[in-house]
């Protein structure tokens, strides 16, 4: 198992290196594009262009440029945005990360609990009215787009009913955990629920299908023939095996969300997270920021996948040897 973990993280490092090279090449070696002009932004004066050229080593060979870029990113942390004159990129990202992590981790807990609960309930109660009802609820969650649902939630909690039922809802925005867990959670409550609803629906449907398949498996029949209780069969045998694909999907979704895919939720609820940062950078064509957030996103996707693979091996002994 230890060997597996080491191998898995070794592979993750290799993937990260490959991604950084690829991102670097896309930004700096796309033929016919002057990277200095891109980085300096529109209408940059010759002095700025010269400064960019020198600082990124555009007169040197590509490997040196790559090394310089990595130095700016990871060692001296002095990658500078030229669009927003002089703003350092890395501190911006570091500031945005806790916001995104707070949003996604909280939502993930909610959607896993809801999704696994609903999926198990529907799968186990198949053939009764509970199953279609729960699944209907799931479809409801899946079919509401986050940006619309978020706006409706805001409309209700911040405006229409803010003077009565929802008077306890704080204004939009993010409050760091250092100012009190309660305020932090209260500010994030509706973003969490909004983001979690979609995923809970997807996970519930997926788990229900997996569970129904598992309950038809021979090993479940064996478990029944052993004289185990239905509850034990459901939890220890059927659910245990059905969770394996759920965990791998969770890794992908979680990684992507932390990497910036929670953009819509962040924008709607005014949370200054990584998604929102990327969104703004894209609007201004702020290349250094885009590059920073792309690498950051890749890092989380790869890391989340590696963690999930290790978890996967924990859940499924057949994977360990592979």
């Amino acid at each position, binding site marked *: 198992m230890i060997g597996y973990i080491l191998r898995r993280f070794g592979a993750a490092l290799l993937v990260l290196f490959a991604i950084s090279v690829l991102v670097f090449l896309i930004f700096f070696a796309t033929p016919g594009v002057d990277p200095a002009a891109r980085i300096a932004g529109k209408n940059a004066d010759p002095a700025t262009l010269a400064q960019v050229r020198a600082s990124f080593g555009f007169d040197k060979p590509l490997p040196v440029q790559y090394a310089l870029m990595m130095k700016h990113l990871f060692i001296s942390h002095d990658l500078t945005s030229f669009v927003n004159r002089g703003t350092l990129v890395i501190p911006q990202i570091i500031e945005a990360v806790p916001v995104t992590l707070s949003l996604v981790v909280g939502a993930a807990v909610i959607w896993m609990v809801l999704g696994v609960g609903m999926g198990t309930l529907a799968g186990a109660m198949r053939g009764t009215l509970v199953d279609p009802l729960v699944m209907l609820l799931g479809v409801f969650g899946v079919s509401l787009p986050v940006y619309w649902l978020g706006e409706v939630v805001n409309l209700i909690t911040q405006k229409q009913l803010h003077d009565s039922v929802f008077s306890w809802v704080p204004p939009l925005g993010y409050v760091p955990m250092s100012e009190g867990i309660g305020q932090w959670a209260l500010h994030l409550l509706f973003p969490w629920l909004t983001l979690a609803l979609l995923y809970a629906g997807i996970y519930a449907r997926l788990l229900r299908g997996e569970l129904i398949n598992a309950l038809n498996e*021979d*090993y479940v029949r064996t478990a029944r023939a052993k*004289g185990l209780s239905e509850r034990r069969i459901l939890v220890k045998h059927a659910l245990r095996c059905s969770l394996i694909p759920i965990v791998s999907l969770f890794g992908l979704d979680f990684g992507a969300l932390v990497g910036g895919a929670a953009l819509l939720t962040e924008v709607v609820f005014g949370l200054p997270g990584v998604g929102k940062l990327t969104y703004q950078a894209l609007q201004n064509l702020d290349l250094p920021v885009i590059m920073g957030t792309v690498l950051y996103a890749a890092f989380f996707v790869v890391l989340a996948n590696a963690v999930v693979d290790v978890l996967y091996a924990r859940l499924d002994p057949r994977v360990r040897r592979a």
Partner: protein
Amino acid sequence: MPEPLLEVSDLRIRFGGFTAVDGLSFSVRPGEVLGVVGESGSGKSVSMLGVLGLIRTPGAEISGKVVFRGRDLLTLKNAEMRAIRGREIAMIFQDPMTALTPVYTIGWQIAEQIRAHEKVSRRAARDRAIALLGEVGIPAPEQRVDAYPHEFSGGMRQRAVIAMALSCNPALLIADEPTTALDVTTQAQILDLMRRLRADHGSAVVMITHDMGVVSEIADEVLVMYGGRAVERGSRRQVFHTPRHPYTWGLLDSVPRVNGPRARRLPTIPGTPGASGQGCPFADRCAHSFAACAEVPPLTGDSGHLDACWLPEEKRTR
């Protein structure tokens, strides 16, 4: 004659409009091996699943009486039935490749069954699992107990499944084609093992199979099923030496012979399995069918050899 351990009378299992088992009656005495033979779809497996209350298809109707040690299993509550399953009646299924939960070790799964029925410590259950694995011929059981199912071959998995089934010393072991998914040499080993274990544990066995060879090796009594009904029942000697039902003739004829002239083609029973709507279920495929076959023949006979066929005595020759 000792009291029967299991007595099934007039068992009927219907799925919607389809009758899978149609008035099946048989009994098993303690320590006896009953071979249940028939083609796929003859209702062998489903009747045994019915006996154990393992049919979970919505809308399945089960009626009749299944008396085990004086209790009618069909009337028991779920919890009472669970206490019998695995402890007093164990069941082995056809495909050992999928019969074990892939994410737990073999030893864990055996211990799980022991601990479901007896109050023993984890440690004691594990020790018993090791002993059982040794007993069914798994080499180095103290290491193999921690192996996962995918680390076992098919034959070893079936041995592990048998070890699990025997873990609580059941009075009755129902084996649903335990050798079908295995290759021939492994089949012989598993049959040997079952014969030996039966001698050691004294369990009665119901062996479901479509393989006449398996029945001839292991069974004391034989029940031949067709279309959800018993068509012939008797001791192994009676059924193999003086088979009385045309379907049994067909089954025996389709076993290749080692001695004597070699047949150009192995005889088969024409047609496809399945009960005809009315009358004798085998009538459509029977070379001997005549007017009387429009009615369902009763299972009758003497000296323990029963058959369900209208054919007069003088025509009962293969």
